[in-house]
């Protein structure tokens, strides 16, 4: 179980990104985080694996206080938590294989890995991960040669190398076209259903939330303004989160919710 308690983040320039946010996520949930750009979604996800240090509050993952962890402990927590990014965050000049293997760095030998030495089972694991996301043939291609959807699949494969039980996805489909968006979210859904990985995913489109999420939280100006199941997220509630001018946009009309 992931417990977020009274999380507040104030940046050095005075911006209040999160205001006293608290919620809990049961294992196996697919939690969608919605809200406008700048509402604090990214900050929230990054506070969970401590890429950003919260100003106040606690994050507890499986009874371990993530906010108190330091050094080795912190890395140990982090390697259980996979993360994928809007801009994929691949090393563009490195091959797909190297990018995927780099997801294993939290487990790898601290010195051997500096010379690109990985155990044979890591290579096997990497091939398996690539097979799972369907791009095993691209293993030795340089990352910048891939399309956006393929790059995000490499991002997922890299996260899979961590053998995570929690997956943070920071707007994973915002840089992709609608059809690719569904295919990426289907992979996440698969991980959620088959492997029982808890997923926290920030999303922009209501129909994607309805289609994939088991639960939704909404952030507005850093405050938690909605917490419920997708079915409760009516047009009215949606406007509360996104503001009066927001219009609901559907993505990829071929899929029904």
């Amino acid at each position, binding site marked *: 179980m992931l417990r977020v308690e009274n999380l507040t983040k104030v940046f050095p320039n005075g911006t209040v990104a999160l205001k006293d946010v608290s919620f809990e996520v049961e294992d196996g949930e697919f939690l969608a985080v919605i809200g406008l750009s700048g509402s604090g979604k990214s900050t929230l996800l990054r506070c969970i694996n401590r*890429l950003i240090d919260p100003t106040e509050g606690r994050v507890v993952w499986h009874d371990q206080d993530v906010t108190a962890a330091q050094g080795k402990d912190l890395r*140990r*927590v982090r390697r259980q938590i996979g993360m994928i990014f809007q801009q994929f965050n691949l*090393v563009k000049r490195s091959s797909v294989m190297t990018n995927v293997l780099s997801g294993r760095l*939290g*487990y790898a030998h*601290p010195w051997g890995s500096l010379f690109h030495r990985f155990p044979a089972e890591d290579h096997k694991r990497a091939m398996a991960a690539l097979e799972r996301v369907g791009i095993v043939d691209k293993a030795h*291609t340089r990352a910048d040669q891939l399309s956006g959807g393929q790059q995000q699949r490499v991002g997922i494969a890299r996260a899979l190398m961590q053998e995570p039980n929690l997956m943070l996805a920071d707007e994973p489909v915002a840089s992709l076209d609608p059809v690719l968006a569904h295919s990426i979210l289907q992979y996440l859904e698969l991980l959620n259903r088959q492997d029982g990985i808890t997923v926290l995913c920030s999303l922009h489109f209501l129909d994607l939330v309805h289609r994939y999420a088991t639960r939704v939280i909404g952030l507005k100006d850093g405050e938690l303004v909605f917490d419920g199941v997708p079915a409760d997220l009516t047009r009215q509630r949606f406007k509360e989160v996104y503001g009066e001018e927001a219009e609901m946009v559907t993505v990829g009309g071929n899929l029904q919710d």
Partner: protein
Amino acid sequence: MQTSKGVSSVAAWQAALFSLLLPGSGQFVLKHRVRGVGVLVAILVLLGLVLWGSAWALLAPLLAIWLWAAWDAFQLGNGRTPGIGIPFLFGAIIVYGMGVQATEIQPGRLVSGWPSMLPYLKALTQPELFEYPTEDVAGLVPIQVPCIDPLPEPDRLPTEDPKLTINTACTSVGDTVHVSGEGFFPNFEGEIWWLNPIGDVQRVIVDGEPVVFTTDENGRFQIDIKAPLAVPVTQQPGPGETQTHTIRAEQHRPYGSLQETQTLSLVLEKIGETVALAFMATILGVIFAVPLSFLAARNLMEGNRVTRFIYTVTRTVLNVIRSIETLMWAIVFAVWVGLGPFGGTLALWLHTVAALGKLYSEAIESIDPGPIEALRAAGARGPQVAVYAVLPQIFPTFTSFTLYRWDINVRMSTVIGLVSDAGLGFLVIQWIRLNRFSAMATAIIAIVLVIAILDYVSGKLRQRIIVGSPVTREISPTRRLLTRGAFVLGFVLVFAWSWRVSQIDLVDLVRGAPDGWRLIKAFAVPDVTDRPVEEQLVTAVLPVPCGSGESSISSISGARVNLSLSCGDVGDPLIITGHELPPNTDVSVRWAFADDAYLRIQSNCCETDETGSLRLETAIHPLMEVDPTSERNAPGQVVITWDEVVGGPQISESLKTVFNLSLVTLLMALLATTLGAFFAIPLSFFAARNVMGDTPLGRAVYYAFRTLFNLFRSVEPMILVLICAAWVSAGPFAGVLALALNNIPNLGKLFSETIEEIDTGPVEALTSVGAGRLQTLVYAIIPQLVPKFLAFILYQWDINIRMSTVIGFVGGGGIGQQFRLWVGLNQYSAAGTATWAIVVMVWSMDYLSARAREKLV
């Protein structure tokens, strides 16, 4: 009528009157404040420029601007805003007029100097590559310069076989001497050389052509030559003295089979040295630049105050070093470790560290932080993040920058020899001094070839590195090991060879450290002010021999000099003591003779102790002896002199010189850029593929211009300066000419590429609305070209500023010439003043042109 800016109650004619009295004030009271201040500042700056050059004729355009300011105020008062084209034009007339005056541009010299250029140009078509081995014969005859009466016997004899005779035993510089010889190879050509008393050799030149004689079938010849200026600077003959020079006639008759000339083998050897120097400087530069670049990367050093401080210091030091040209560093290091490859390597290395440090740090600043975040999220450690997320991102850019720098280093090391005895440039300057034009031409051609080839290869290589290989090929571990091993081995071998060739000698570096330290100290503290000094002296008369005069001493407020003898003979031991002199002061102790000549008793002497006393043991100098037959017919004196400060601090002479020369340097760069652009713009259209079309003629013209541009771009400006100095004689004009000749192909290439990249969309659009050819040119093409052309011109102006600080080293005038002179005279703090002026000049112009370019693009 009310003004558009409204509320002012000042009438138009009043504003005009204001501006007539004080330019800009009328605009100011009309609330056009920026315009008013701008007018005033512009007029003051231009006035300063005119006064500086005392170019009174240029007061006329200045007056025109002044009147325009009044008219402008009148128009503004009436609610109209005139354009600023007119004052701009007059301003340009003043600036360029000053430029022409300050850089001593005399187009006539292009014509009158042409004959002295011919040997250079002819030589370029006749490089010394291969030759037949020769059997040699030489005849010598002494000749005395100048003629005196009576003429002493020459101190050497003419050769007997072959025999050389001259029609006069003595001559003056420029006079004709008739030379005849016998006993030479028959029916064969030979050369005449002139040797001065200290053994310097030069080819005898008449009317710009080296003298060549041809023997008849009996091995005799006759020829007229002119006595060249060959008297050594350090050993001028005194009045009534003469020196024995030698005329040498030599023939080299080939036999056997062709072999490479000594010139060619020397050139080949120096090509190696050039490349080795560049290699060494680049590798050592990288080793130092990589760690520094991390300290100079803003994104890594934002952390806290300490790291920000380190960042600022590193950046500033790198920038200062970078704004001083490599050639200038070469002169500095020549003082530190002596002339030779090592000093050259150090200079290249230092500039490389600064330049690469900056480029690398910018590469680090522009990396994508995403992957770093991703790996940290996966639980990776710091070093792992560096290896997997940072290195792959910076490696290609670093390698590409390194190659680019190595390219520049090879270019620089071809010319570094012009000031430091290393590489191909050394051969060029050496052979120019010896008037061996065709040998010089061989070296110049080698330089151009080396640069052109390297340019091409490294361009290709850089492109490959940036593109990289999109798919990782699977290669067997053994093969990988073999290729890596070969690579490492090759690198080590090249490195070891370069180390040896560049004569890296750390002992020299340490041994020269006191000199270097003195240099740095003097450089760091520029000569901004000095205080006027007056020479003070105390004397003691010393009659030699005794009885030839009265002994006496003079003193100033207690300061005096005492001698252990009141009189004596030549060679007698003498103790000189000074009393109540200024304490801890450098003084000079001299023998002073009755004819006002003097001689220091000891060089680098002496300093008084803290009580102002001084003691020196010597013996009476032979020249102190009274000689009634000469002007030295009265007793000599022992004199102690020192400088005493009178009056307060004033702006130092060196600062004034530096200020003047900085202006000259700026004007040189301005004129060169203007001239370069003026010729490059029309020429560039011939080198643009889309303009020349696809006809056979068009293609031929296109390729011809492209090739010419590329070829001339490979001729380093420093080499051009050498040639231009021969053409229009050394000075700022030669510098301007050389820079302009270098700018034409450089700008031409950039311009033609811009023309090729024109967006055809607007042309299409205008054609579709029925516009004519000229209309399309004016509305669709020129607006696209102008901003880019201007940006390139500004960029070239930046480079020209830097170049114009060093072209003076080889006869291009400007501040570089003075810098080299000062370093040569050990006046390091004056040289330091020049250096700081250069730093300021380069920085401010860099800043201005960067701002201007931002606005353009």
